[in-house]
């Protein structure tokens, strides 16, 4: 067994920041990550980091933009914490050596981004995330923080009191991918989950293959509720074969979308008569899918994004990297032919419910980054707001886990007297649990008195048995089949367009997947670097996470931010200014709501029409 004060699970932007902060607060930190840190998906972010740095800009404007962008589902304390701290955190990165793009006078450059009232997106070329990730990893190396890389975290070791609010997390169980060895990691101070997004729940995503929502699923099984899972951002221009993102820049420079009939459909079919291709992400994504659904898609799958008319010179000057992307990943030369694009899953606004200090309702369990939901993004994330979230809340979570006093949080977590139970929606199928063992992260037989070590040992034992069973089973279904089916269902029914009926259908398919998962087996008999085993475990997490997404999408019968429902295509502030929370209750998910906090430090954010 390994033992540290703080265990950080995940080494993307959020995890690295948390580890550095905890280390500076004097804790003995270790990072456990299934990928080597520099492989994390933070490296894929291109656009930039929003921070009110310049004179004339102001954190309050940033907060306001964020709140408006969230469609008033962001919690004001979180939004304001983000906006206030982003500048200092961004400059700290600069001092750590991050190569930001520069102005003539040597200051860092900022550029305009969608939904922002001031050009405050700080960037480093077209590879901001790459530099952010590498700069922070460098600092981790400098501080000699222990990194267990290519260790896959399977479960949390949590006590099993009936009320999650009373539970305590004592560590994690992980296995060394390279050798197959399963070990416990005891955390004396706290466990910070920073495992990134759940994009692989969808068939077509800009997210990495490793974005499988492991943290979501582990926290969920340990009793921490998942919040606002229905809010998934779809990006309108991703390449059809791989999901690689073609940045908004192409449309910003004047790129045009055509359907198979050569119509400029954004105008000709009246999706956005004013802004056309430059309408907001969700509008464009829905328009594209409508075209495809109505038979005007190219190969029934995608539409064309054409930038040829911009001329070679302008393209080479401003969009050169796009040419490379299209060439390398789609085999298309953007100078001579239009590029195929379609909407792809891009970002999950929801996640593990935490307060401003990154803590969940389970004692000692923290979450930060895309896997968490402090509720900064609410119903819709603004471009450039995820990276500041990583560094601001990653740092807070790390410090708090290390024992720093950050004050009482205003946001409440877990089931309590301020929540409202879901009563209206009838669920088509009883949601359930996936996997051979039903006990999840909570040590089953422990009783309240078991000590930390005992709990950890038991969790390790459960994990070993589980792996043994998966390995020993000789025949059955392979995870890839189940995963493909799940992803297809999510893309078919819980995509950009959602209907009550469709979402119900998806829930049924998810249940089928879960049943099939009972029969899953790992074909690869080797303990050495068994990715088959790893993916099989990941698939189970995906099933659980996908179900919460679908459940959220089913109960929220309104149109807010990225979530669109056919039955009720308006934003329903009367009934829905509240977060959806789904919590695991002995394997029976229960759904409840917590009102959104719109009272900020100096003002209350009044919901307004979201139009740009």
């Amino acid at each position, binding site marked *: 067994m390994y033992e540290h004060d703080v265990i950080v699970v995940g080494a993307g932007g959020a995890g690295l920041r948390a580890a550095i902060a905890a280390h500076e607060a004097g804790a003995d930190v270790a990072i456990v990550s299934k990928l080597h840190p520099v492989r994390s998906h933070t490296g894929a972010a291109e656009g930039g980091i929003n921070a009110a740095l310049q004179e004339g800009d102001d954190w309050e404007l940033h907060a306001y933009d964020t709140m408006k962008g969230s469609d008033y589902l962001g919690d004001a304390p979180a939004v304001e914490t983000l906006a206030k701290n982003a500048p200092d955190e961004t400059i700290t990165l600069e001092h750590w050596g991050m190569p930001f793009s520069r102005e003539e006078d040597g200051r860092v450059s900022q550029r305009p981004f969608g939904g922002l009232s001031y050009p405050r997106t700080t960037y480093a070329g077209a590879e901001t995330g790459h530099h952010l990730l590498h700069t922070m990893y460098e600092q981790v190396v400098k501080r000699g923080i222990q990194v267990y890389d290519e260790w896959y975290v399977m479960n949390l070791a949590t006590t099993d009191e009936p009320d999650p609010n009373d539970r305590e997390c004592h560590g994690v169980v992980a296995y060394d991918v390279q050798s197959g060895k399963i070990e416990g990691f005891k955390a004396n101070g706290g466990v910070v989950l920073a495992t990134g997004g759940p994009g692989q729940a969808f068939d077509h995503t800009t997210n990495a293959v490793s974005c499988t929502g492991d943290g979501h699923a582990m926290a969920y099984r340990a009793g921490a509720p998942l919040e606002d899972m229905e809010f998934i951002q779809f990006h309108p221009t991703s390449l059809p074969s791989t999901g690689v993102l073609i940045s908004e820049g192409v449309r910003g420079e004047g790129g045009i979308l055509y359907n198979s009939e050569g119509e400029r459909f954004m105008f000709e079919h009246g999706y956005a008569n004013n802004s056309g291709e430059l309408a907001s992400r969700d509008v464009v994504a829905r328009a594209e899918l409508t075209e495809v659904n109505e038979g005007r898609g190219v190969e029934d799958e995608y539409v064309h994004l054409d930038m040829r008319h911009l001329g070679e010179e302008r393209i080479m000057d401003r969009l050169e990297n796009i040419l490379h992307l299209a060439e390398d990943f789609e085999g298309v030369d953007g100078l001579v032919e239009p590029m195929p694009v379609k909407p792809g899953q891009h970002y999950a606004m929801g996640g593990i419910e935490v307060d401003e200090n990154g803590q969940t309702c389970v004692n000692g369990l923290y979450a930060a980054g895309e896997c968490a939901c402090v509720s900064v993004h609410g119903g819709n994330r603004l471009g450039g707001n995820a990276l500041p979230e990583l560094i601001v809340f990653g740092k807070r979570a790390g410090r708090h886990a290390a024992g720093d006093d950050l004050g009482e949080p205003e946001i409440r977590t877990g089931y309590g007297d301020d929540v409202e139970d879901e009563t209206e929606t009838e669920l088509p199928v009883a949601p359930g649990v996936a996997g051979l063992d039903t006990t999840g992260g909570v040590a089953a037989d422990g009783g309240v008195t078991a000590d930390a070590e005992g709990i950890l040992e038991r969790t390790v034992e459960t994990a070993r048995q589980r792996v043994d069973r998966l390995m020993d089973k000789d025949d059955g279904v392979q995870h890839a089949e189940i995963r493909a089916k799940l992803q297809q269902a999510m893309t078919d029914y819980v995509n950009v367009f959602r209907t009550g009926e469709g979402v119900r259908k998806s829930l049924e398919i998810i249940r089928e997947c879960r049943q099939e998962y009972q029969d899953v087996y790992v074909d690869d008999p080797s303990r050495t670097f*068994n990715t088959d085993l790893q993916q099989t475990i990941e698939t189970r997490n995906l099933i659980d996470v996908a179900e919460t997404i679908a459940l959220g999408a089913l109960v929220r019968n309104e149109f807010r931010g990225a979530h669109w429902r056919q039955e009720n295509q308006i934003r329903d502030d009367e009934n829905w200014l509240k977060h959806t929370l789904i919590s695991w209750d002995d394997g029976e998910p229960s759904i409840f709501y917590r009102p959104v906090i719109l009272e900020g430090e100096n003002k209350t954010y009044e919901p307004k029409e979201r139009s740009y």
Partner: protein
Amino acid sequence: MSTQQAEPETQEAPEDPEMKGAESPQERRLKEKDDGMVDERSEKKAELEGETVHIKVFRYDPEVEGKQEPRFDDFHVPFKKGMTVLDAVMYARDEYDSSLTFRHSCRQAVCGSDAFFVNGRQRLGCKTQISELQQPVRIEPLPHQEVVKDLVVDMDHFYDQMHTVEPYFQDEDTPDVSDLEEQRQSPENREKIKMSSRCIWCGACMSSCNIAAGDNEYLGPAAINKAYKFAMDDREDEQIKEHRLRILEQEHGVWRCQTQFSCTEVCPKDIPLTEHIQELKREAVKKNLKFW
């Protein structure tokens, strides 16, 4: 695994498959794997589906009997426009043989996980269109690194070398946050380090360098490039730059480079590695000349 990893307190070996009684199912499958049944399966299935690509993938697994002696497996994967080498191996894994093992994650050339030796050259699987290659496409793990399993190689040494050049800003750890201002850097200086800062740690360059193969302590092009990024950044002061040059000047530093250019040719991020190494050699000579 990183260098910073301590030895575990309790070392519990994974359960040995041999120990599990007469013949566990795992063991049976271990045996079946030798029969090369996989290839036939894939061939049949693909025949039904039109145009296919033929890939030959290196297989090795220290635990599986039939794979202890390395071999190549053939797969016939249905071709799709835009298909990359990574797509092809993923398809082969998901449809034909789930034990086919390789690292991959981002699918967009930023995570650096999937550098393979494809048709005799180090390439990123996800960044290589399979239609541009001659068939059968031969896919092997990176040369000059130990093979852990199939296409997975041991990257520890690479990480060690990267860490050796002190790849971090030497300034104070974390500045005081109250009223912080950024350090100034001219756009020209930013431009100077731009290419060097794009490295994704894929290891292709190290694998392609003959010198690195012969001399395990040679820092190698990636680490030297990393050092270049810091040495050329004006935000660090002269003294630190000298310190950096001193690291690079060691016996196994820049002088080892014989300007073979293989590193520059294979780098998926088009970093002019040889040029950077040469520039550092000149810097070092300049610095040393002062003492004469």
